[in-house]
């Protein structure tokens, strides 16, 4: 199992498609920094530190409470075009490097050699885990890059609740953690992103039995992800609980957690269809 995982992880992370996706994601992360009010704050701090008088008036009013997390891209949500565009096409980015390798293995006959050597079960499990890790990594990487860029502009500190600058209120998930232990909050934030987008990317494996065209399979997670958002927004009138918006847990309220968890459970069960239907797979 360890050997096959090593091979599959190498296939997922050391290929040109992965580098291109990381490059595109980095552009989104940098663009998000430069196109939000956060950049103005960072610019004023830079001018202030270089002795600009006008900037000093602005900074004095800010009361020294600006921290990197204040100008981090999820903070500005839909007002940042780069962030919002990235969020919409994220399932596409996640699936490009590794998502259709199962179909490619099947059409090239490589799958036969794998299964003879290591067995069906191990092969399918390794495919699932690798795609999960690959999808999760691509989803969390731009957030991390943007956080690094923001940390280059402002000091990394604890948000101050009394300033009311921050979008996390008492009714938001982990709000106390946000104001008391930001590092743990960020770790949880990244973990939730990793798991949710890992699961969304794995939808391509579950749908491999319905659709064999690899280009169509590339679109499957994106279509389900976006249509789920549309159905929940217009059908249930709960736009802030869709996977597209609520995975940014800054938007997630305590009252919506059950609905959000339900979506993740359904997603997980859908992904699991991949293992259920293995028996019907004709190689």
């Amino acid at each position, binding site marked *: 199992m360890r050997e096959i995982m090593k091979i599959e992880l190498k296939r997922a992370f050391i290929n040109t498609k992965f580098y291109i996706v990381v490059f595109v994601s980095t552009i989104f992360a940098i663009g998000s920094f430069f196109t939000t009010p956060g950049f103005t704050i960072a610019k004023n701090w830079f001018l202030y530190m270089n002795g600009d008088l006008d900037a000093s008036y602005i900074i004095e009013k800010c009361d*020294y409470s600006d*921290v990197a997390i204040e100008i981090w891209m999820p903070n500005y949500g839909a007002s940042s075009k780069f962030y919002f565009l990235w969020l919409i096409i994220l399932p596409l980015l996640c699936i490009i490097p590794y998502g259709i390798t199962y179909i490619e293995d099947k059409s090239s006959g490589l799958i036969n050699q794998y299964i003879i050597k290591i067995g069906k079960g191990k092969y399918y499990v390794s495919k699932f885990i690798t795609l999960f890790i690959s999808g999760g990594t691509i989803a969390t990487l731009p957030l991390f890059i943007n956080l690094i860029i923001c*940390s*280059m*502009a402002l*000091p*990394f500190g*604890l948000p*101050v609740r009394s300033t009311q600058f921050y979008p996390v209120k008492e009714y938001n998930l982990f709000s106390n953690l946000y104001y008391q232990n930001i590092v743990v909050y960020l770790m949880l934030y990244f973990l939730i992103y990793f798991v949710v987008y890992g699961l969304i990317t794995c939808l391509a494996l579950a749908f491999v039995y319905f659709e064999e065209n690899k280009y169509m399979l590339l679109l499957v997670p994106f279509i389900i992800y976006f249509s789920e958002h549309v159905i929940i927004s217009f059908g249930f009138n709960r736009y802030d609980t869709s996977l597209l918006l609520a995975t940014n847990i800054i938007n997630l309220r305590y009252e919506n957690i059950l609905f959000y968890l339900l979506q993740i459970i359904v997603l997980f069960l859908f992904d699991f269809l991949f293992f259920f239907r293995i028996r019907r797979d004709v190689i």
Partner: protein
Amino acid sequence: MKKVLKIIVVIICFLVIARIAYVNIAYPAADIKIIDEDEIFDLKNFSLRLKEYDIYSKEEWKQKLENENIELEEEKYNVIYNMNLKTVLLEMEIIGFIF
């Protein structure tokens, strides 16, 4: 080619780490600081010393203003503050300018 790329990546990482370190050391920190009486804290251009402080509850603050014959902002402008915060009266001393 790979070696050159590696060197570029290492240089970028070094510059990023250096910049983050500079920002966190040189910028006035935004962390909440708990300061006690007589303690000195430094801002960019000057340092302050906390000489004295008194904490008032909402009722105590109202009483104090009444005693000093100062009209309460809430009553004068008919504003309702929902927050039940305590009021702190500070006395600071500027102990040094850096130009």
